[in-house]
C-alpha cells in the first residue's frame, strides 16, 4: 500500500539557552558553589559594572573613585575571594580554574576591563600561589583576602610586573632589564636586596599595595633571574607612573611604574638557597611565569567568547525591531515581525557569531576543567617523584619522558579492549601517567584558547558590530558591542600576544603524547559522526586527519631550496599550522558540549522542556562551525603542502615535463583523443600556453589530494544546518529588554 511520507519538521530553539543548560554544557551542573558564583558575578557585572559603563565610566584613563567602587563590589560579592582557599578567607575548596573562568565569563559579558581588573589581582598573586614559599603564601593570600564580617581591614591589591619599557621585555620575556643586587649581607643574617625595575602597561598599578616583579641578577652573588615581591611601604621609590592612554579596557588601571626599592631576600618568590656565598633563587622568572600563564591565559580566552555570546540577544532585538514604527511596517507584516531577520544574510552572519561564541566557550571551559584536573595530579606526581628521590630537573625530565612513552602506549590501545585489561588498568591507575597525559593536553589547550578565542573572536566581534549597522559603533549600542570589539584586541595582546601562543603551540602540538591523543580523537569523532551525523563530526575527523598528515609531512620535508620546513625559525610554517589546530580543537569541544547537553538534559526538568529544539540548534551550530573549521584547515594545509614547492616555469626544466605539439600529434595515432586531455603542450614554434608555467605536479601528495576531495564532500549538508539554525534564530523568544543598562 502506498503511503505519503510527511516530512517531520525538526523542533526549533524556543528561548535563549538557560543557566541550567549552560551548567550541563560546561559541566558544573553538580557544583552549586560555582552556580552561586555565577549569580554573584552576574549581579556585579549587570549591576554596578554596567551602570558605570553606561554612565561613561570608560571615558577616562585615570583611576577614578567610581572605578575603585567596583573593587569593593568584587570583594563584597565574593569575586575577590574566589582565588583563595577556605582557610584563607575563600569559599571554594580545591582547584579554581573553572571558577575563575566563570567569573571572567560573567564580567566580560558586560565589560572586559572589569574582568581584567578582577583577574589582574589573581595574576599578581599567582606567582606566589604557584611557586611561593608557605610563608609567602600565607602572608599574601591572607592580606589579599577580603575582610570577613566584623573585620575592619582593607584588602591588599596586587600587580604583576613583567613587561618593561622598550627595548626590553615584551613578547621576548628573556630580555629582562630589571635588576636585583645585594645591598647588604651581614654574616648569618638575611641579605637585603636593592631592586631596580621599570614596568610598562602594568595592570592594577594605580592602586596596588604589592607587586610581583620579574628581575635579573645584577650581582655576581646572585644567580640568574627570579621574581620578587615588592611592597608599597618598602624603603625607596614606589612610583606608579602615569596612566596608560588605553583605547580599551578603561575600567582597569594600567600604567608604567618605576621601582627602586630595598627588600629582604625572603621576598624572592619560592625562596632561595645559599651556596658558596651565592644566592640561588629556587625558581628563575621563566619557571614562575610559565606556571602562572599556563593557567591565567585560559580565562582571557573565555572573556572574548563571553562577549560573542553576549552579542546574540542585542543583535536579535535590533534586527527584529529595526522597522517597527514605520508607516509601512504594520503589526503582522513581515517587516514588522521579522525586521532585518527577513534577510538571509543577516541571520546567517548571526549564526556564525553565535557558533564562534559556542566553540570558544567550549574550548575555554574545557581548558579550565583540564587544569582543575591537572592541579591535584601535578602535586601527586611531585610527591611521587620526591618519594623516589628524584630532585634534579634532569632526572625528573627523564622520568617524565619515560612516563610519556608508556602513556602513549595507553592511548594507542585499541578502543575495544575490556575495561579490566591488565595493561590498561595498570596504566590508568598510575598517577604519573595520568599527569603526563593531561599535562600534554593542557600544554595545547591553554595557548589554543588564548590564541583562537581572542584572535578569531576579535574578528567575529567585528562581525557582530556590523550586524548593528551604525548603531554598532556608537556608545549607545545595547550590549556595548563596539567596546567589546576593540577590547578583544587587548585580550589577544596582553598575557602574551598571538605570536607567543603560536610559538608555544608549535612545540607542544608535536609532542608524541599529544599526537597519540589527537589520533584517538579522530576515531572518537568518526564514532560520534555515525551516531550524530548532524554535528559535522565526520568533516571534522577528515580535517583532523588532514592536519596530522600535513604536520608529519612538513616535519620531514624541505622547501624548494632544501631548507627544513618544520623548525622554530620557520614561523611561516609552524604558526599557520598552530592556527589550524585551534580551529579543530574548538570545534571538537563544541561537539562534545552539545552531546553532553543532549545526553544529560533529559534528567533536569528545567532543561528537559524544549531540549529537543535546543539540542537541534546546538547540533546545527556544531555543523556550521565544523564546516568552517574544516575549510580553514584545508586552506592552510594546502598552502603549506604545496606552497614551498617552486612552480615549474617556462624554462628548460619546465619544458621537459611538457609535450611538444609534434609529439602529441604522433601519439594521437596510438592514443586517440590524447590531445583533448588538459596537458601542457609546447607549440612547434616554441610558444607555450598563457599561464604561470606548466601545471605543478603533486608528487607524494596524492594522499593529501584525496583527503581534500573527501573533505569537500564531507561538507554535504552543512549549509542546510545553517539554514535551520537561521530559521531558529528568527523564531526564538527573547526577553523584552536587555537585563543591563546600555
Amino acid at each position: 500500500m502506498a503511503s505519503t511520507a510527511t516530512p517531520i519538521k525538526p523542533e526549533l530553539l524556543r528561548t535563549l539557552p538557560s543557566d541550567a543548560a549552560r551548567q550541563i554544557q560546561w559541566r558544573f551542573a553538580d557544583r552549586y558553589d560555582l552556580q552561586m558564583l555565577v549569580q554573584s558575578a552576574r549581579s556585579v557585572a549587570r549591576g554596578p559594572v554596567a551602570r558605570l559603563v553606561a554612565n561613561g565610566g570608560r571615558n577616562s584613563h585615570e583611576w577614578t573613585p567610581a572605578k575603585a567602587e567596583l573593587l569593593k563590589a568584587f570583594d563584597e560579592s565574593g569575586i575577590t575571594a574566589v582565588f583563595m582557599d577556605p582557610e584563607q578567607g575563600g569559599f571554594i575548596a580545591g582547584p579554581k580554574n573553572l571558577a575563575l573562568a566563570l567569573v571572567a565569563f560573567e564580567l566580560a559579558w558586560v565589560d572586559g576591563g572589569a574582568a581584567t581588573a578582577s583577574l589582574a589581582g589573581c595574576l599578581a598573586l599567582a606567582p606566589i600561589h604557584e611557586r611561593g614559599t608557605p610563608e609567602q603564601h600565607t602572608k599574601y593570600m591572607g592580606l589579599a583576602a577580603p575582610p570577613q564580617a566584623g573585620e575592619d581591614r582593607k584588602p591588599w591589591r596586587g600587580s604583576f610586573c613583567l613587561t618593561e619599557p622598550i627595548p626590553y621585555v615584551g613578547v621576548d620575556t628573556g630580555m629582562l632589564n630589571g635588576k636585583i643586587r645585594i645591598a647588604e649581607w651581614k654574616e648569618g643574617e638575611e641579605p637585603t636586596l636593592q631592586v631596580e625595575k621599570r614596568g610598562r602597561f602594568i595592570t592594577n598599578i594605580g592602586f596596588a599595595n604589592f607587586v610581583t616583579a620579574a628581575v635579573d641578577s645584577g650581582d655576581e652573588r646572585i644567580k640568574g633571574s627570579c621574581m620578587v615581591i615588592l611592597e608599597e611601604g618598602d624603603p625607596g621609590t614606589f612610583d606608579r607612573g602615569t596612566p596608560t592612554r588605553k583605547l580599551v579596557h578603561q575600567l582597569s588601571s594600567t600604567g608604567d611604574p618605576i621601582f627602586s626599592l630595598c627588600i629582604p631576600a625572603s621576598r624572592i618568590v619560592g625562596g632561595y638557597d645559599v651556596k658558596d656565598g651565592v644566592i640561588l633563587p629556587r625558581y628563575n622568572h621563566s619557571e614562575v611565569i610559565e606556571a602562572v600563564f599556563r593557567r591565567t591565559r585560559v580565562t582571557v580566552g573565555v572573556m572574548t567568547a563571553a562577549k560573542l555570546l553576549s552579542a546574540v540577544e542585542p543583535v536579535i532585538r535590533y534586527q527584529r525591531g529595526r522597522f517597527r514604527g514605520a508607516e509601512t511596517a504594520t503589526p503582522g507584516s513581515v517587516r514588522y515581525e521579522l525586521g532585518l531577520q527577513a534577510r538571509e544574510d543577516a541571520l546567517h552572519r548571526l549564526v556564525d557569531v553565535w557558533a564562534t561564541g559556542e566553540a570558544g566557550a567550549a574550548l575555554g571551559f574545557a581548558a579550565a576543567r583540564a587544569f582543575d584536573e591537572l592541579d591535584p595530579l601535578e602535586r601527586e606526581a611531585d610527591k611521587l617523584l620526591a618519594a623516589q628521590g628524584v630532585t634534579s630537573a634532569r632526572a625528573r625530565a627523564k622520568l617524565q619522558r619515560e612516563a610519556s612513552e608508556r602513556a602513549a602506549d595507553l592511548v594507542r590501545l585499541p578502543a575495544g579492549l575490556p575495561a579490566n585489561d591488565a595493561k590498561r588498568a595498570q596504566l590508568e591507575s598510575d598517577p604519573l601517567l595520568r599527569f603526563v597525559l593531561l599535562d600534554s593536553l593542557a600544554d595545547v589547550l591553554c595557548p589554543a584558547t588564548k590564541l583562537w578565542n581572542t584572535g578569531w573572536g576579535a574578528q567575529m566581534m567585528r562581525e557582530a558590530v556590523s550586524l548593528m549597522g551604525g548603531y554598532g559603533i556608537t556608545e549607545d549600542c545595547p550590549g556595548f558591542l563596539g567596546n567589546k570589539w576593540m577590547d578583544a584586541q587587548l585580550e589577544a595582546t596582553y598575557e602574551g600576544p598571538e605570536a607567543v601562543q603560536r610559538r608555544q603551540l608549535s612545540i607542544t602540538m608535536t609532542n608524541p603524547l599529544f599526537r597519540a591523543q589527537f589520533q584517538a580523537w579522530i576515531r572518537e569523532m568518526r564514532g560520534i559522526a555515525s551516531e550524530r551525523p548532524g554535528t559535522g563530526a565526520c568533516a571534522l575527523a577528515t580535517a583532523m586527519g588532514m592536519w596530522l598528515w600535513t604536520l608529519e609531512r612538513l616535519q620531514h620535508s624541505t622547501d624548494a631550496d632544501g631548507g627544513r620546513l618544520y623548525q622554530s625559525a620557520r614561523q611561516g610554517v609552524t604558526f599557520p599550522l598552530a592556527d589550524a589546530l585551534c580551529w579543530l580543537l574548538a570545534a571538537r569541544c563544541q561537539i562534545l558540549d552539545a552531546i553532553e547537553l543532549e545526553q544529560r538534559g533529559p534528567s533536569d526538568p528545567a532543561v528537559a522542556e524544549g531540549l529537543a529544539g535546543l539540542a537541534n540548534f546546538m547540533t546545527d551550530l556544531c555543523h556550521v562551525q565544523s564546516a568552517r573549521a574544516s575549510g580553514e584547515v584545508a586552506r592552510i594545509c594546502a598552502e603549506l603542502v604545496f606552497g614551498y614547492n617552486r612552480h615549474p616555469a617556462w624554462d628548460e626544466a619546465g619544458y621537459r615535463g611538457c609535450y611538444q605539439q609534434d609529439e602529441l600529434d604522433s601519439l594521437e595515432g596510438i592514443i586517440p583523443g590524447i590531445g583533448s586531455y588538459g596537458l601542457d603542450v609546447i607549440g612547434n614554434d616554441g610558444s607555450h600556453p598563457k599561464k604561470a608555467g606548466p601545471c605543478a605536479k603533486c608528487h607524494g601528495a596524492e594522499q593529501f589530494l584525496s583527503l581534500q576531495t573527501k573533505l569537500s564532500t564531507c561538507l554535504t549538508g552543512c549549509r542546510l544546518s545553517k539554514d535551520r539554525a537561521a530559521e531558529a534564530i528568527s523564531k526564538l523568544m527573547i526577553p523584552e529588554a536587555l537585563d543591563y543598562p546600555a
Partner: protein
Amino acid sequence: MTDGYHIVVCGSVVPDPLQTLEPIETPTGPALKNEMMLPAVLDPWAAHALYEAANLASKVTGSKVWLVSVGPKAKLQQVMMTIAQRVSFELVPVDSSASGFADAHSTAALLAETIQSIAGLDRSRLLVFGGWESASRGAGATMQLVGERLEILDQFQGVDQLSVQADGSFEVLERIEAGRHQVSVCQGPPALFGWATGNLPEPRNNPQVGMANMRTVMPALQRAKSEPLPAGGLHFLSATPPKQQRQTRVVKDLSPEQIAQEIAEWIGK
C-alpha cells in the same frame, strides 16, 4: 521573648519580569509559553518577606527562618543559587506547580499542610510571612487562606513594617490608600503577615552564607516530595495578556525622583 521566633516564609518562583509572558492554552488549562525554560526569580513580594524575616531573626536571638516553597524543583534550585547567598534560612521545598494559573485554594492547602509538617516548629513562636500578593498572579488570597487553615487569627496584609515592642507585642504598619498606613498592635505569635515591600534593601550577596545554606538546601531539594496540585474549583474561560502595549525600559541607574518624574510625564502625555 527569650527563645526567639519561628518564622516561616512562604514564597516561590515567578518568571523573570523582563521575559515575554505570553499565555497559551494547554490540555490542562492556561499556562505561560515556555515557562519552564524562562529564567525565574523569587517572587518579589515573597522576597521582601524573606528579607524582613531574616532581619527580624537576626535581631532576636534563638530565631529561625524557614522558606516554604511550592514550585517546580528544578526551577527552585536555580533560584536558590541567588537567594541562598542573601540570607540564612532552611528551605522546605515541595515539587509542584508555581503557575500563576494555579488555584490559590489548592496552593494554600499544600502550604499549610507543609508548614504543619515542619519538625520542631513551635506554634507559640510561629510567625508566618509571605507576600500580600504574587507577581505571577496578584490574587492576594493565598496567604489569607494559609492563615485560615493554620487557624491563625491575627493576620495582616500589605505590611510595610513590623516592630517588636518592649513588651513583646508587635506594632504593624499595613498599607491603606493614598500612601498611608494603618497602625495596629498585635500581642505576639502566632500571627501571619502578608508583606508589601517593607523597607529593607535587597541584602548583598554573601557567598559564605550561600555555602552554609546550601548544605541543607541541596539535600532538601533532593528529598522534596512531588505533589501535583489539584485543579480545585477554578477554571479559566480565557487568558490574554493585558491590552495596553508594554513599554519596558531597564532603568537601574536613575534616582527615585527621576523615575517618578518620568512616570508623571508619561501619565500626563
